[in-house]
């Protein structure tokens, strides 16, 4: 896109900055800051991933080649954590999409107070994730938490212990993970809803009017008018949420810290553990961080490709 830069009227007496100077002045501070705080650590981190460095050991980093990567990729536990995170991302984003879309459709038709309700629904999204985690922990408590109480199990012995993966003292494997998924969905469905709603608002009325005159079925209207217009935004919402799911740390730390056992040990949590707890395996955790990064980039690219294809068709 060509931009017309108008010639500035020269006032010899007035000192003014040339366009070139302005570009430099405006853009460079941002770039420099970004590079310093983002790019440099990235490269340093890459370097460290090839070493056995430990931040508390006090020894200089020693090059060990791909050993970290090999160890990580051969570690069954690691694969387990990746699987857990994958499951988490899939279910959570899936439910967010479903509920978010549904809510947006319901809120699209105006009714008295729909504006207020829309704003209220946004509140979960605005609370600090770790606080959300903490409070759901309180609510999930089988003795004095509201969750059991509201779903009809006031007696702690006979009811589920959501975060301990048990029901009536019997183990229910995986329950804890889905309990966390529930909270994640609770928190972020409003985000998807917001994006879908703005997409819905952009659909011109006359398309639906033509459909009314043609007596098109609701099914047709949904798939042929609504979905195509909303799809790009929905995909962006899904993209963001998927990336966030892979990075998910705050929520889990507040709620379970990875437990019980390692049922909710998401990959980001494990990364924290390796890097900052126990042995402070800085090199190894850097390698893990890079593996995660590559996965995220791959997934993002897939989405963006699909998104572009969709835009190309439109």
């Amino acid at each position: 896109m060509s931009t017309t830069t108008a010639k500035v009227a020269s006032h010899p007496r007035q000192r003014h900055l040339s366009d070139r100077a302005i570009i430099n002045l405006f853009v460079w501070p941002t770039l420099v800051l970004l590079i310093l705080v983002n790019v440099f650590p990235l490269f340093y981190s890459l370097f460290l991933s090839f070493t056995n460095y430990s931040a508390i050991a006090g020894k200089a980093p020693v090059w060990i080649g791909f050993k970290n990567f090999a160890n990580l990729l051969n570690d069954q536990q690691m694969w387990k954590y990746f699987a857990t995170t994958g499951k988490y991302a899939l279910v959570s984003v899936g439910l967010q999409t479903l509920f978010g879309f549904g809510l947006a459709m319901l809120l699209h038709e105006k009714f008295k107070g729909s504006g207020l309700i829309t704003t209220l629904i946004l509140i979960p999204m605005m609370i600090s994730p770790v606080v959300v985690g903490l409070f759901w922990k309180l609510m999930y408590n089988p003795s004095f938490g509201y969750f059991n109480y509201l779903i009809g199990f006031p007696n702690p012995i006979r009811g589920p212990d959501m975060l301990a993966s048990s029901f009536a003292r019997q183990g229910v494997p995986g329950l804890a993970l889905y309990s966390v998924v529930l909270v994640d969905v609770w928190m972020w469905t409003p985000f998807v809803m917001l994006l879908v709603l703005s997409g819905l608002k952009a659909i011109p009325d006359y398309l639906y009017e033509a459909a009314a005159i043609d007596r098109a079925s609701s099914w047709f209207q949904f798939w042929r008018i609504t979905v195509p217009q909303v799809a790009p935004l929905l995909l962006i919402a899904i993209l963001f949420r998927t990336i966030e799911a892979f990075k998910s740390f705050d929520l889990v730390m507040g709620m379970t810290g990875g437990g019980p056992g390692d049922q909710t040990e998401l990959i980001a949590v494990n990364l924290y553990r390796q890097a900052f707890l126990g042995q402070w395996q800085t090199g190894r955790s850097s390698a893990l961080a890079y593996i995660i990064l590559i996965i995220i980039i791959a997934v993002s690219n897939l989405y963006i490709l699909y998104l572009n294809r969709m835009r190309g068709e439109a």
Partner: protein
Amino acid sequence: MANFEQTGPGKPVLEATRVDKVTPGYRLGHNLRALIVVLLAIVGLIPVFVIVITAFKTRPDAIHVPPKLIFTPSLEGLVFLFTERASASPSRLEELKKAAEEVQLGLVDRIALNAGQEITGPSDYVFRLRNSLIIAGISTLLSVVLAIFSAYAFSRYGVKGKGDLLFFILSTRMLPAVVVTVPLFLMYTQLKLHDTHLGMILLYTVFNLSLAVWLMKGFFDEIPREYEEAALVDGYTRMQAFFKIVLPQAVTGIAATTVFCLIFAWNEYAFALMLTSEKARTAPPSIATMLGIGGIEWTAIAAGSLGFLIPVVIVTFALRNYLLRGVTFGAVRK
């Protein structure tokens, strides 16, 4: 529906609406859908409700089995949040009780007394809150200001490699915090930035920059160039045109961007946890670990969370329309 087709609706329709949307069947469905949404919203807000009432319960009420819906409100949570306490020995308790009979004890002391504790001084919470305010506030200011300038340049000029630069800026947002944390921790420790305000401000500024630049560019793109060009013809310099003409028009965009950046910086936990310990620690990590005497102080946590939440809610509510605009930028337009 034969009846409706012959007679129409009961009362005159005063809105713009299609005939098929006025049939009784449709109205019923419409009202039902509205009801469902309201119910969902109520259910969805129960956890928020829980936080609110827990903030005003006494400690025993908070962990009462089964959970109490009706209770006598108390400011205990707030008191515990803002003070440090120690268990009072029985003799000390006696002393205090005697003193209470002679002198009217303040509310705060009374509460502590009831819980069998005595106040030993203010807690760290205020300090942490102050840190949050400083760090979130300054970093938001910086990122928005920097973004305004760079976004303007990207919007108006053919900067070399603009597309690539912009993508680079966006990609920094894609990075998981975890990837950057480890080396940042090392870098900060080396540079003595660990646990400093400056370090956190720098970090949050950078993290918000990418979003801020994209948002502001979108907003600037919307402002027609003709205004500045007319000013230039009139003899203004580029800088003058920028300050006098463009910025006032971009105010709503600046507001939206500020809200997003503020929310992120305010609520941020992971970096705060890993890169601070004592001096620069913000509120989120400390709310999470509010250990009192005898376990987790739920009332204090609730009070702290509530207090922490309210500014965000207020600001977001005030600017809700701008948020909708901000969220869709770059998504719908190319």
